[in-house]
């Protein structure tokens, strides 16, 4: 017995509502963030991740307000990402009640920001999110994309992960863009390649359609935590059911 693998429901937030897209598009409304956060906490979620998917200066205040409300009622770790551009954004989110901040596009545009944020607030609260897609026109297998999956960077996802850890990332949130919203399971070869290349924990994301996918993410992909959205939002499974399934498959969980 020891450290448990974590289950992390992910709440994509836009205009103050939780939504879920398919392959980063076609958004459907899934409910009120505070209500959903409380429900997942009651079900035994180990952490919650909020992604501000249409983050811009207009609604920056909105997500801060949501985090403040959630942090007053839900006492588990909260990660917030989306539109984090400068060290000051990290401070604002942490002050609002976030425990970790996820940095994605900015990490590519300005890697020093990751370094500065980790030096100032500690690696434990700096998550670097990597959106990766399988490519065949490069000397490597998976390429990093930014801007919600719209821009190719020419970066090798595995090397990029190592670079981010060297700069101070304390955790990696790896999303397979090929899998996101497809319900065919995590990209385990991608996750395994990154997990074996770094020393920090890895959160697998993108593609969960059933509970066996969560098990495979840990046992095959080497993930320390598994993130999922739609299987929980639409009530297909509760977090509790997911944990029981994982425990029955010999994965240590907090129940």
């Amino acid at each position: 017995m020891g450290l448990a693998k974590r289950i992390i429901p992910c709440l994509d937030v836009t205009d103050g509502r939780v939504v879920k897209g398919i392959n980063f598009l076609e958004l459907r409304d899934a409910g009120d963030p505070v209500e959903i956060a409380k429900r997942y906490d009651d079900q035994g979620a180990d952490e919650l991740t909020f992604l501000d998917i249409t983050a811009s200066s207009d609604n920056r205040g909105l997500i801060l307000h949501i985090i403040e409300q959630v942090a007053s009622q839900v006492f588990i770790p909260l990660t917030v990402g989306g539109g984090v551009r400068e060290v000051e954004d990290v401070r604002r989110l942490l002050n609002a009640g976030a425990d970790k901040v996820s940095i994605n596009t900015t990490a590519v545009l300005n890697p020093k920001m990751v370094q500065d944020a980790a030096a100032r607030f500690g690696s434990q609260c700096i998550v670097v999110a990597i959106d990766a897609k399988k490519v065949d026109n490069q000397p490597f297998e998976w390429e990093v994309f930014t801007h919600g999956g719209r821009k190719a960077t020419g970066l090798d996802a595995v090397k990029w992960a190592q670079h981010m850890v060297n700069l101070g990332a304390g955790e990696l949130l790896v999303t397979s863009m090929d899998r996101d919203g497809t319900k065919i399971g995590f990209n385990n070869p991608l996750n395994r390649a990154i997990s074996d290349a770094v020393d920090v924990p890895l959160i697998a994301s993108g593609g969960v359609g059933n509970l066996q996918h969560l098990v495979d993410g840990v046992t095959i992909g080497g993930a320390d935590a598994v993130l999922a959205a739609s299987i929980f939002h639409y009530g297909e499974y509760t977090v509790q059911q997911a944990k029981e399934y994982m425990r029955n498959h010999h994965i240590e969980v907090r129940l």
Partner: protein
Amino acid sequence: MRKIDIAVVDYGMGNLRSVSKAVEHVAQGKSVVVTSAPAEIQQSERVIFPGQGAMPDCMRELDSRKLRDSILHAAANKPFLGICIGMQLLFEHSEEGDTLGLGLFKGDVKRFTANQMLNDEKLKIPHMGWNQVYQSKPHALWQNIDEATRFYHVHSYYAEPIDHALVVGETAYPKRFCSVVAQDNIFATQFHVEKSAQAGLQLLRNFVYWKP
């Protein structure tokens, strides 16, 4: 001056909102204040000393706000709860940036060693997530908390007290390390009680009503 039941020490390095909200949740009717004013810390009934980030920065911020004496005074006189770096700072020295701590407890703060294995997988650092805490010694703050309850940990360094009698809780990663120390009116945890759901709230509740 306002009456303060519980002061949460603000030295610019904590997830203070999370800590104060969790305390307010279990201490209804009590005044919980996030403060960096030495006078307020001095006159509060109990003190919570949280902390996040790198230890050298934490010590620097603590000193630049002239809080060292207030912390030492509180730790000597009233119910005192250290959390995470707030536990590590109580020791003499940390490997993190070769930093001198407050020196209340003899011992070093050390980094987890890389290249260890855990269940056939590489040991990840930081140690992040819900791990079981073994109650090495009975303590009033363990009330209504089961042996081997999971708490949320996130850290790369851990304290190694020279006096083993201080150890009241241990966590395994992969070897057992000291995750809770206590002496007289001081109780300090490496894990985040404020982020440990019901178990953490219970521990905070126990602290709020603790009469050491």
